[in-house]
């Protein structure tokens, strides 16, 4: 079976979850991803605890691993030789570290002008904060959404979603640059940052904030109580009798009210709520309190069944056990079962993109550190067995 990126050689110089996963996505779709581990400072590989290294088997799946000592001249030469063979480099290393090893874009492109050099930084390649560390919490703090997500009076919320946004932004940028290279032969630098990614996760609010009259900005800057939502049946949260939360997204209340009202036991013609204006303006708070009481009369399962029956745009808020057991998730391979040589059958995150002709596949679990050093040196760089033996004896690999 062919794969979308099976002619692409990717050098993975990453140390963080977000960008390691970018390289894994390219590998999932056929990219030949070679992960470089430096012998002087082997990267943390998830938890060192006993048991399944679930993190590595997600963010390093389908990759090969080479272990090289950059403290030795031959080791640094090997790194450069690898970079010269790469179609793509994915990195989140700080620029000075890359420069020291001649693995920065300018150095690599001097001999490999077609390289697509993808990097995730903390705050972008230019500007006063371009050198700040790539820590997602710092980036999230700067993006403006954190003080708006919680209930009033509660601490701000760090979601971690920004880092995941960066994962996909970088993959998109790199593949787009590869398409450009197909047409022109030209390589280039691709950059995303955790800051940009966090801003884009909050893009609707942020764009609204850019456009709104300055006098009205306050309402967008602070948390809004769930008991004060502007539309009682859209973006609203209500607890059910077993403590599970119900959420509704029914912005067009004229369309949904005739379905929702009988479901919660309110007369459709109840004159307190018989127009959009009454529901969302005049008697808004009364409706919120009415719904608060109604939803607490039955458990979450009751509401889910009712929502499903009526094809309503509403659902019950679940914990991770739900997707872990949801047949819909399994049918689409979003979570997959894998067979681990040491731990047997396990569930692991699967592939979020479906391609009919070249689907993502799990070809291998995360490699052991340095597992493929000899093979890569032989196949990609043309070293003989004797050369490799010598490099091993010298402690270069």
């Amino acid at each position: 079976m062919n794969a979308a990126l099976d002619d692409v050689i990717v050098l993975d110089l990453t140390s963080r979850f977000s960008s390691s996963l970018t390289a894994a996505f390219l590998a999932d779709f056929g990219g030949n991803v070679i992960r470089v581990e430096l012998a002087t400072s082997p990267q943390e590989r998830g938890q060192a605890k006993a048991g399944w290294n679930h993190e590595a088997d997600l963010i390093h799946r389908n990759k090969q691993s080479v272990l090289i000592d950059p403290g030795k001249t031959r080791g640094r030469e090997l790194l450069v030789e690898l970079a010269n063979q790469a179609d793509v480099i994915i990195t989140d290393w700080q620029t000075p570290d890359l420069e020291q090893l001649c693995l920065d874009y300018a150095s690599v492109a001097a001999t490999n002008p077609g390289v697509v050099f993808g990097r995730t930084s903390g705050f972008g390649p230019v500007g006063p904060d371009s050198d700040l560390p790539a820590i997602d919490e710092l980036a999230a703090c700067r993006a403006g959404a954190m003080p708006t997500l919680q209930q009033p009076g509660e601490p701000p919320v760090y979601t971690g979603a920004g880092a995941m946004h960066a994962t996909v932004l970088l993959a998109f940028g790199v593949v787009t640059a590869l398409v450009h290279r197909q047409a022109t032969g030209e390589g280039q630098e691709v950059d995303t940052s955790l800051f940009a990614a966090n801003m884009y996760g909050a893009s609707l609010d942020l764009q609204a904030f850019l456009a709104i009259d300055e006098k009205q900005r306050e309402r967008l800057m602070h948390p809004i109580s769930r008991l004060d939502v502007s539309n009682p049946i859209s973006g609203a949260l209500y607890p059910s009798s077993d403590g599970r939360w119900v959420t509704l997204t029914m912005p067009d209340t004229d369309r949904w009210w005739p379905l929702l009202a009988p479901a919660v036991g309110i007369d459709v013609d109840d004159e307190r709520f018989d127009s959009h204006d009454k529901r969302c303006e005049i008697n808004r708070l009364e409706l919120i309190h009415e719904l608060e009481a109604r939803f607490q009369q039955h458990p979450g399962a009751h509401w889910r069944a009712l929502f499903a029956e009526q094809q309503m745009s509403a659902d019950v808020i679940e914990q991770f056990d739900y997707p872990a057991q949801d047949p819909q998730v399994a049918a689409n391979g979003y979570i997959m079962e894998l067979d681990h040589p040491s731990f047997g059958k396990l569930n692991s995150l699967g592939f979020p993109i479906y391609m009919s002709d070249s689907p993502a596949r799990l070809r291998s679990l995360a490699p052991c550190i340095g597992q493929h050093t000899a093979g890569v040196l032989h196949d990609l760089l043309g070293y003989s067995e004797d050369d490799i033996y010598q490099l091993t004896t010298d402690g270069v690999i």
Partner: protein
Amino acid sequence: MAKALEGIRVIDFTVWFQGPVSAQYLADFGAEVIKVENPKGGDQGRGVRSMKSLAIGDWNQYFLVINRNKKSIAIDLKKPEGQEILYRMVEKSDVFLSNLSPALLAKMNLSFDQLSAINPRLVYATNTGYGRFGGVSKPSFDMTVQALTGAMARLGEPGQPPIYMGMGSGDAYGGIMSAMGIAMAIYQRNRTGKGQCIDASLYGAQLYLAAPYLQAYLAGDKKSALQQSRKEVENPLWNLYPTAGKWLYLCEENTDQRFALLCNALGDDGLASDARFASAQARSENNVALIAAIDAITSGRSDDQLLAEFERNGLVHSPVNSYADVVEDEQAWQNNYFMKAYCEEVKREVDVRGLPVTLSKTPGEVNTLGPQLGQDTELLMMDLLEYEWEQIEEFKAKGAIP
């Protein structure tokens, strides 16, 4: 300026947010994106002029930004002549993208099989709610899908309601996921000459919004599914702290050296000499007491003063900024995360979100904001689809185009 996706033509048959965002990324990097809209009102997203009951600005920012750099053709696809026009577009396009349901698309004679029979090179992309397989086809909005992933339930203080990650957070993520899938399919098509069907669903994408925590759960860490209090985090040096003003996020390792700097920054000798906090292990065992002690100090201080002390001591930290800070943030402007664009509707430059990923030689551009409904219909009918003027008049007479 060179464009990465020069020469790629995209039929953008999408509405609301996720689908338009996906096509917006392709348009920003130079694809010719043609929005196909119903002549009666077009994309429903055109009607979104308010948010949280606030009228937002004097221009249609919701629609115009995610549909920037696009053309618009108005076609009534219920008419056979309308379908004929669309089929001709399919012959001449590289990508067909829709976020309508596959069942509805099939009913409109726009299934993958039908369109790839017309153009085998076509990349056919959908943004379903819950994936192409498994049979679930209930309504899918950002928040109702995010609810199912478990990502909301783990956020917030224990006992508090779950946390929604923000308006459009899931759609934006599904949009970039879809754009990545399309770019891969184009790359492969350029090598093999063969298109295919791809899907990036709202559910599939959003399951990845909490990937580190969901993956830990799948490996047996049941706690990762649950809300955890900031008052009980294992490393008190990596935590949010209140001040009299903004909250601060301290991001430091739990070492004696970093703790000493923190004590110094807080100006509190009691903390430094407290035996309960004398080692890394002691600090993580007495985390609740330490966090409470730090809270007691920071909550009375002004954010300005604490920030200056943190800075002076070289502690890694950030204030928790508001949107008002972000839109003034020099770092965001210098990196083109915000840009300016001319808005026809109000005849002036407006501020828009820019490019979150940049390509050095083909950097992406914002040339025009979203099109007026059907503004390019006649031109596309003539230049791209090569209809004679008489034929165009006939299509108009039959109501296939306005």
